[in-house]
């Protein structure tokens, strides 16, 4: 379990994770916001369904993939949070994207 140092600076914004409204710090990556909200897991793998969470935090491992504002398989560690952002954790493989899914 991770948590934010209480004296961390920066404005707070509201985002949602799996429908639950949580606080993030403006400037956080999505993966950092997940950890700050006490969540270390964010998906299960397409191959065996094994649970995974962000691992490298620098864009290399792709274990932090989540759905962001309707777009699946986004790297949480490479995406900044924005007020009102909707983050949904993933189970297994994503469906092939269709033009409709690309613009919800």
């Amino acid at each position, binding site marked *: 379990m991770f948590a934010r140092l209480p004296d961390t600076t920066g404005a707070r914004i509201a985002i949602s994770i799996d429908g639950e409204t949580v606080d993030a710090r403006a400037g956080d990556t999505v993966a950092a916001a997940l950890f700050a909200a006490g969540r270390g897991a964010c998906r299960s793998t397409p191959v065996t369904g094994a649970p995974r969470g962000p691992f490298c*935090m620098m864009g*290399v491992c792709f*274990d932090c993939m989540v759905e962001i504002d309707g777009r699946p398989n986004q790297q949480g560690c490479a995406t900044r949070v924005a007020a009102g952002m909707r983050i949904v954790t993933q189970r297994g493989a994503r469906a092939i994207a269709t033009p409709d899914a690309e613009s919800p």
Partner: protein
Amino acid sequence: MTVLDVAIVGAGPAGLAAATLCAAHGLSTSVYDEQDAPGGQVYRGITASPLARPEILGDDYWGGAGLILPFVRSGARYVRGASVWSVARRDDGAFALAITQGPAAARATTSVVARAVILATGALERPFPIPGWTLPGVLTAGAAQILLKTAGVVPRGQTVLAGCGPLLWLLAWQYLRAGVAVTALLDTTPHGRLAQALRHAPGFMMSPYFAKGRDLVRAVRRNVRVVEYVESLAIVGSDAATAIRYRTRDAEESLPVDQVLLHQGVVPDVNLAGAAGCALEWRDLQACFAPAVDAWGGTTVPGLFVAGDGAGIAGAEAAPALGRLSALAVANALGRIDADARQRLARTPRNALAHALRGRTFLDTLYRPAAAFRIPVGDTIACRCEEVSAATIAQLAHDGCAGPNQMKAYTRCGMGPCQGRMCGLTVTEIIAAEQRRTPADVGHYRSRFPVKPVALADLAAMPVSPEAEQAVVRAPDH
């Protein structure tokens, strides 16, 4: 299409220093970086730290700020949030780069032409394939440090650090300063390694790392339980890590954990250089592949340079000097300075480099990870993306699989989204061990463009030009 003089990939210490000097010599210079602020991983977050107590991170981190202002004032163009996924040498000797930039909702893919390219793509953490390393709650120490640097996010509860190398100790020290409890540090540095390394101690004692490193390790030892000579590690849990089991020569113990932070050094990220056709070579002391480079960072592809840790681990103190040397070589190649000026101007960075490299052999020898932590066995996952076990790879190697590229075809290892960055070294070393060959002989995955996953829609939206077409054709084998 306008032609840049030089395109630099990466805005860490090597890229920033290279860009600043290229611009000073009047070269039109663009820097492309995946992050949205300069600094690379080592100085991540340095322009927008969230920490109310910046001293937590230590003076070495803040020393990186000295690279930022000269870069900002240099006139080099800085393109943030940009992923360079192809660097192809054209028939005329210039390079076509394919670049995807921007957040998912407003992404643009473009092509840029540059007369010379400096790759400053740095390092990534060496894979640490042990049982349970894919479980949530297991992160690299570098990842945990990025959480601290960029978000002020720290572990709570039972936290075990395991592995070896300077970053592991630095993170423990930073946590101490931040008031974060560390349950234990499980040190995997093997027996006898210190004695071997001490042969190189005279160099190390004159190095910039010596006094700082000694004080830092002492401070950690005073405050954290350190278990030395750990020979085996296994992380236990079903939905997340709940315990770590370790074994030393005379003890075995299981520690309950909320998180495990793993680290056993860093290795060059070779995917872009490899795909661009640069010859890679095995560096045995550092147990990794790196592009073959000359004294200026020049690769086997004319006009393509690699500077900083991407050309072999030299550290953050050496990176700016390496970046400046590549910049001087580019300025010379493009006719801005003659060979005499290049030699003369290289003296300062060469002296800085020699100073920064003192003690590197000591550190490389001391912290070369034990084979048991580089070459997994049994059910341990080697390829995280495609979930291929060590036993599967060893069995196919035993049955005569020719090498890493054929292993991809057999198992899909290295073919997931990370494109082999998390398993390349592991797969090479398993094959080498099984077939009693050297890693140099086995070789590395042949990486291909795009070196980062690109959505088909982004490819389709590319403006079609000869450069764009050339950026996506297969690079010739070298």
